């Protein structure tokens, strides 16, 4: 077989292989050789550059290409391909991990983590390459192999600090959740093979399915991939795993890996005949619930990384709402719904991977400075870490969907789609109207959430003495964050840059419907967005500079913030993270189940006492863990079989043998 070097797919496949193997050379060297980490990063860089090169080549050449090889497995083929939908998801894969790898050079130095530095590099490359392979594979057997490669690599990454009990616990939760999802995927692909006659992920199932089978396929898709994406009742693994992983790993997991769940849903939906309206309504409703509850849980958190993990769930909810709208459009043969819903969802995939990675890397810088994830122990960091604080502001504004940054553009597309749908007066006014309100609620709550985090972490005065003076991180950690913030600005001002690719992806996705599809660029007045964003930025920057001059000239800041003019206030009178969220937490008490431990005042002169709150994940703590504990107790009865005597075990074998003989005889 011959391939031209100008074939984008070949370049991307080579990039995938290099990324998968990037951590391997370091494993052959002693843990004291700290330069191996630079080797790993260099390989990641080579892989990413090759991947981007391939994407650029492919975008100028033939859009869809594929490679098929036979292999020795009993089922399937080694079959990979590239199309517009895949390219949309490959862009974050070739962008975020390499930035995180550079960040890791300073954040997770081999010299400071000799025991797990090499392993982290190995699994980091496996995760990145595995995700690229997931997107490339066009065969369900290969897809599952790549999927497990990705999932297992993430397990070992999340458990990097496995000497801590909390990390191990989070790792086990992740392992159970990811395998629960994989079981659904196995069932899904087995059923798909039944109805389509092959393992290839390109045969579109024709519309002759019975409604029962079509519904089963659809539900299996949503549940199986929903576990990875973190749709709401299936999100249980997400907060723990993200909070306990090293920060650059959290950035990749949240920024890219969750999107693989979204990719899976979209890819399988291209194969299924979606004609029923309820499919889209269910996805829309799931997205709305995921979004609202995700951000509500985020507000209730005091652990900065758990908060960000819940915020990722919220963003997955927004993306899912876009997909739901697109599904409704497909069922109603409305190309404009599909265009706006899916276009917004895919743009939000990019945007979220940019700003969520940015703030996860940011949280790593904060943790390096203050050595804790508890926001109640932080405060006043804007004075000691101005660069980090400024970069966090970029991420926070973008994630709240505020103009002029990128979160606005994608959420606006979804809004437009929802308004179109309501205005069209179709049969879906009711659910779509509610979804539009839900999206607005999500936006408002996200704003509250990030105001809380910014105020508590960066403003005010330090709440607790910190070991050493907090300071901005090194350049290796700063530059990746700056690049990500730059990406947020560019996509915020010029979202049109991505439109050609998004347009192709949307057209490819809605192929089965195929009415004439309008142009994404003409669907919304984006030149206005660009120019208004520029004006806005000029105003904000100008106002900031002016204000700063004035303040610097006038008032020397001797007194701490929140001092109310009183110079001797202690930091303890500041609002804490808990008190910031208290109102919203009590509003959503019926779903959050917060635990308060209040002091009881019993005498005239009460002694020193303590107050504490925590908001554990209610799905995990109230449903899943009790169910597992009950199952564990019931399974204990099976321990009766374990007698520890070899004779009895052999008797079991004999019993089974006799049973099989008898059964076979009856069967004849």
């Amino acid at each position: 077989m011959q391939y031209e070097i100008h074939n984008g797919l070949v370049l991307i496949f080579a990039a995938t292989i290099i990324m998968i193997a990037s951590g391997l050379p370091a494993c052959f060297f002693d843990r004291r050789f700290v330069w191996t980490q630079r080797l790993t990063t260099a390989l990641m860089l080579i892989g990413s550059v090759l991947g981007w090169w391939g994407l650029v080549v492919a975008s100028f050449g033939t859009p869809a290409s594929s490679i098929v090889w036979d292999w020795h497995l009993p089922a399937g083929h080694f079959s990979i391909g590239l199309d517009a939908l895949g390219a949309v998801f490959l862009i974050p894969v070739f962008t975020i991990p390499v930035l995180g790898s550079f960040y890791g050079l300073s954040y997770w130095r081999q010299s400071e983590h000799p025991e797990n530095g090499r392993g982290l590099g190995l699994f980091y490359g496996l995760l990145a390459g595995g995700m690229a392979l997931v997107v490339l594979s066009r065969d369900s057997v290969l897809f599952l192999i790549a999927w497990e490669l990705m999932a297992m690599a993430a397990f070992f990454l999340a458990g990097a600090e496995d000497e801590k009990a909390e990390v191990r616990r989070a790792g086990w939760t992740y392992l159970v959740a990811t395998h629960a999802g994989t079981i659904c995927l196995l069932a899904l692909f087995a059923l798909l093979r039944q109805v389509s006659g092959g393992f290839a992920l390109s045969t579109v199932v024709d519309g002759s399915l019975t409604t029962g089978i079509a519904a089963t396929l659809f539900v299996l898709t949503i549940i199986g991939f929903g576990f990875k994406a973190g749709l709401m009742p299936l999100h249980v693994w997400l907060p723990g795993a993200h909070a306990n992983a090293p920060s650059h790993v959290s950035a990749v997991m949240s920024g890219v890996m969750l999107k693989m769940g979204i990719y899976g849903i979209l890819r399988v939906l291209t194969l299924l005949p979606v004609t029923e309206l309820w499919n889209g309504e269910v996805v829309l409703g799931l997205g709305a619930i995921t979004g609202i509850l995700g951000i509500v849980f985020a507000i209730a958190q005091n652990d900065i990384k758990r908060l960000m993990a819940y915020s990722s769930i919220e963003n997955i909810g927004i993306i899912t709402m876009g997909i739901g709208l697109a599904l409704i459009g497909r069922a109603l043969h409305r190309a404009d719904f599909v265009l706006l819903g899916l276009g917004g969802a895919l743009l939000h995939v990019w945007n979220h991977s940019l700003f969520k990675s940015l703030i996860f890397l940011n949280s790593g810088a904060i943790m390096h400075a203050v050595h804790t994830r508890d926001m109640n122990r932080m405060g006043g960091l804007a004075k000691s870490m101005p660069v980090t604080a400024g970069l966090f502001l970029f991420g926070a504004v973008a994630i709240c969907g505020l103009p002029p940054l990128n979160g606005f553009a994608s959420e606006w597309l979804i809004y437009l789609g929802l308004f179109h749908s309501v205005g069209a007066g179709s049969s879906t006014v009711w659910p779509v109207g509610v979804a539009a309100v839900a999206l607005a609620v999500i936006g408002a709550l996200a704003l509250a959430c990030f105001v809380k985090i910014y105020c508590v972490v960066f403003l005010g005065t330090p709440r607790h003495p910190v070991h050493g003076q907090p300071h901005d991180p090194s350049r290796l950690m700063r530059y990746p964050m700056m690049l990500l913030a730059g990406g947020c600005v560019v996509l915020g001002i010029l979202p049109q840059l991505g439109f050609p690719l998004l347009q192709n992806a949307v057209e490819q996705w809605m192929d089965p419907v195929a009415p004439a599809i309008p142009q994404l660029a003409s669907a919304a007045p984006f030149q206005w967005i660009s120019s208004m964003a520029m004006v806005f930025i000029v105003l904000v920057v100008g106002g900031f500079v002016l204000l700063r001059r004035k303040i610097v000239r006038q008032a020397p800041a001797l007194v701490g913030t929140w001092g109310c003019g009183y110079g001797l206030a202690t930091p303890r009178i500041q609002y804490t993270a808990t008190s910031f969220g208290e109102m919203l937490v009590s509003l959503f008490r019926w779903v959050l189940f917060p635990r308060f431990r209040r002091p009881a005042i019993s005498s005239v002169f009460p002694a020193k006492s303590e107050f504490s709150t925590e908001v554990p994940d209610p799905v995990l703590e109230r449903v899943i863990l009790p169910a597992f504990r009950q199952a564990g107790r019931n399974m204990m009865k099976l321990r009766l079989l374990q007698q520890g005597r070899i004779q009895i075990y052999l008797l079991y074998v004999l019993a089974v043998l006799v049973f099989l003989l008898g059964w076979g005889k009856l069967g004849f």
Partner: protein
Amino acid sequence: MNPLLNALLVVVLALNLFALGTSRLVTVIKIVSLQGVLLGLMPFLIEGHLGWRLLLASGGTILLKGGIIPFMMIRAMRDVQIKREMEPLIGFLPSMLLGALATGFALLFSKSLPLASAHTTPLLVPASLATIFVGFILLTTRAKAITQVMGYLVLENGIYIFGMLLMGAMPLVVELGVLLDLFVAVFVICIIINHINQAFSSLDTRRLVALKE
């Protein structure tokens, strides 16, 4: 079909019962090795001619089952200084009766099996089933590790008899592979016996309960 073959199989069945009824370990080892030699002769009776393939397979069987394994077992027995199976879970006479019962069951059962007509005449299938059952009885009712190894060998002999049905169809490599497996298994077991003896000062496998979680 072949009176000599049937006669050999009857002897094998009788040896089974003999193995169940004796408490002396040396006797059990000798019985099982004799059984192995008889099994090694059977391929000639079935095929009715000599060939290098047949010679290799039969020779290997006889050498291993009649020579090497008994030698290893007797040495293991001498090392751990045990001569008798003292306290079986089921007594010697009852287990012999149980073996006879199992043999009868096997005879009855194999009559109703849907076998190809070429296989129905000789006693091969019932003898195989009966030997497997006897192996299981030895394995489940005896306490000493060495007797259990003998049970395992009897069980393997039963499977070997069943393999005779496929004599012509099975490649030589497979047969040699099976023999090699057996050899390795017994070799490992001999080592384990020594270890059990050192760790528990006894070969009573019932003491392994202490390893239970």
